[in-house]
């Protein structure tokens, strides 16, 4: 996979390639572009909330569109494609096959992303990334909401196609001499994520069609005026999107398992406990969806069942953390950028997990639900944990993608600004939630406590914005002018790397 960027090749050759490393490059670069687009919206949101009342946006409807796009973009166009990109790079190499199982399908799955993204971005909807009816069917302005629905449909189909490809590549194309219990845990992670996508996502793609026909007025699945039930949508939605939390997270878990033993120069503490915890997490992820809905009027029994289902996922996460701490114990740790990001991510994951236990304790959920607590909680998770590990992996794979080394100093600035910024912003948001500030608000009560906490959160966000600017500069500059990497061991960890030089001819 090396020299993809440096070796002069016409752009069209990469664009029309079906080779897994080329598709991987497309996935990775586009996910990073969407990361910066969504992050820019976050800066606008935090600027607006510096003070109560209108600050830099005069129209609440624009603010509502911005937080909708911020969420939709970062979940579907950053987290999913980045994981697919790294999977495309590494899975065929790790299972010792020449390419993905279906190279053309692979390219098709990638090329569904740009039209899906264009529909979502140009639509500029205001329904929130959850698109709860009846708002999204009776009040949300078109064609924005319709474009959002079709955009997500295309993105969902793309995910399903790429998942089929990963499953077949791993299970059918694995080298016959390589037993499944010897593949890197990252392969297990991509396999389990793909199975979860195949089980979870069709429910949401079906409910998107129901949402659309409801908008047209020809059906009333979720419209109480036509005998429908809006809560049914929430069940269908969270049946997809609580597992989706693990779909986002499990590739990051796999990446952490890849990085930690290498950078501790020690074998993994327990391979089998990692695999077992991944499989159990993948199953139990399906048993907790209604903890997003405690306040919709669920019965006492339902609330109890889903609280237990949610708590049941915690020991598996704890098993992963145990492995990640026990592995470097007594090892010779190499503190390069990937190490910092992984351990920073694990530290914030612990915080996010503790907050999650509070969310699922039923009486406490009624205090935190739909407040800024929840905003802080899931940002610690998707940003502080998943994205942190993704950034670490991006730095790790950078020399293999470009043949050059990134700037370690800029990467360090990126990490520390980001880590401190994330704590300032997301921990403060937890407290804001306890003070009763609802999420998704353009304006808040003019109370000195709320104002100062919002300003702390905004300062943290601006630190993260600065951090991401150094990341962008580092990536662009190092790709073009970085020091050539010493390819046999760019991180000086004396580890065996993948056979990155092996490259099959293009299809």
């Amino acid at each position, binding site marked *: 996979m090396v020299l993809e960027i440096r070796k002069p090749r016409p752009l069209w050759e990469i664009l029309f390639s079906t080779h897994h490393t080329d598709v991987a490059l497309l996935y990775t670069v586009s996910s990073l572009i969407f990361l910066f687009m969504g992050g820019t919206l976050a800066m606008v949101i935090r600027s607006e909330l510096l003070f109560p009342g209108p600050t830099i946006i005069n129209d609440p409807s624009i603010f509502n569109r911005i937080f909708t796009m911020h969420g939709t973009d970062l979940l579907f166009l950053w987290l999913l494609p980045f994981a697919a990109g790294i999977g495309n790079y590494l899975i065929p190499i790790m299972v010792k096959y020449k390419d993905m199982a279906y190279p053309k399908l692979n390219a098709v799955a990638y090329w569904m992303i740009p039209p899906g993204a264009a529909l979502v971005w140009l639509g500029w909807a205001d329904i929130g990334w959850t698109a709860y009816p*009846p708002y999204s069917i009776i009040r949300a302005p078109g064609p924005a909401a319709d474009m959002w629905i079709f955009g997500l449909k295309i993105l969902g189909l793309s995910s399903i196609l790429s998942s089929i490809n990963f499953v077949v590549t791993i299970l059918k194309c694995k080298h016959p001499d390589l037993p499944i219990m010897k593949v890197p845990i990252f392969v297990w992670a991509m396999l389990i994520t793909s199975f979860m996508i195949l089980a979870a996502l069709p429910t949401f793609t079906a409910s998107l069609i129901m949402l659309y026909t409801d908008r047209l007025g020809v059906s009333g699945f979720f419209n109480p005026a036509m005998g429908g039930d*809006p809560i049914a949508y929430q069940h269908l939605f969270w049946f997809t999107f609580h597992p989706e939390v693990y779909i986002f997270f499990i590739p990051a878990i796999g990446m952490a398992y890849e990085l930690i033993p290498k950078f501790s120069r020690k074998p993994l503490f327990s391979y089998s406990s990692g695999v077992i915890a991944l499989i159990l997490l993948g199953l139990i992820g399906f048993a907790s969806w209604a903890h997003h809905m405690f*306040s*919709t*009027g669920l019965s006492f029994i339902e609330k109890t069942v889903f609280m237990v289902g949610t708590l049941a996922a915690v*020991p598996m996460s704890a098993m992963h953390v*145990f492995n990640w701490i026990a592995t470097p114990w007594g090892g010779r740790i190499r503190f390069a950028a990937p190490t910092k990001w992984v351990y920073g991510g694990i530290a914030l994951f612990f915080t996010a997990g503790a907050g999650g236990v509070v969310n699922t304790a039923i009486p406490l959920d009624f205090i935190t639900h739909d407040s800024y607590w929840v905003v802080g909680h899931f940002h610690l998770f998707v940003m502080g944990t998943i994205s942190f590990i993704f950034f670490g992996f991006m730095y790790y794979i950078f020399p293999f993608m470009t043949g050059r080394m990134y700037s370690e100093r800029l990467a360090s600035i990126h990490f520390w600004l980001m880590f401190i910024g994330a704590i300032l912003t997301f921990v403060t948001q937890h407290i804001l939630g306890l003070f009763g500030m609802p*999420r*998704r608000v353009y304006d808040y009560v003019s109370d000195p406590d709320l104002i100062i906490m919002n300003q702390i959160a905004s300062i943290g966000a601006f630190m993260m914005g600065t951090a991401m600017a150094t990341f962008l500069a580092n990536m662009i500059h190092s790709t073009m002018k970085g020091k050539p990497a010493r390819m046999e061991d760019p991180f000086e960890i004396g580890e065996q790397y993948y056979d990155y030089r092996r490259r099959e001819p293009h299809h």
Partner: protein
Amino acid sequence: MGSHNMIEWVYIAAVVAILTWVGADSWVIEKYIDEIPEDAETIKVTAQQWFWTFEHEDGTKEVGELHLKAGKAYRFEVTSKDVIHAFNIPFYTAMIDAVPGRINKVWFAPDQTGEFLIQCREYCGLLHSQMRAKLIVEA
């Protein structure tokens, strides 16, 4: 390898014990909260974009303001006329979704007099952030 496994099992047992305690405690508290006192007075709460209407047992209606008496239990029957909202009084941590076509119940007994914020906690469109009302608790 044996001692390795032992450490991990002890650790998992500790995590499970903490979770069991959190779950059991939540269950007990929720069971208590879930039961609405028999003598609670009923207030019908109707949400619509973007204001609140309250109807007392005697039929009097208030818009944007709710007057309650301290030391009495109230049962709120919450519904919505258009989209989903959420009825929330942060000070008394009362919170329940207002769903069109459904009536959700929540209760509390105000014990302090004064003015408190009532707000919408579920995104409901353009003026969601302004969908507030005033709770006035009198002695």
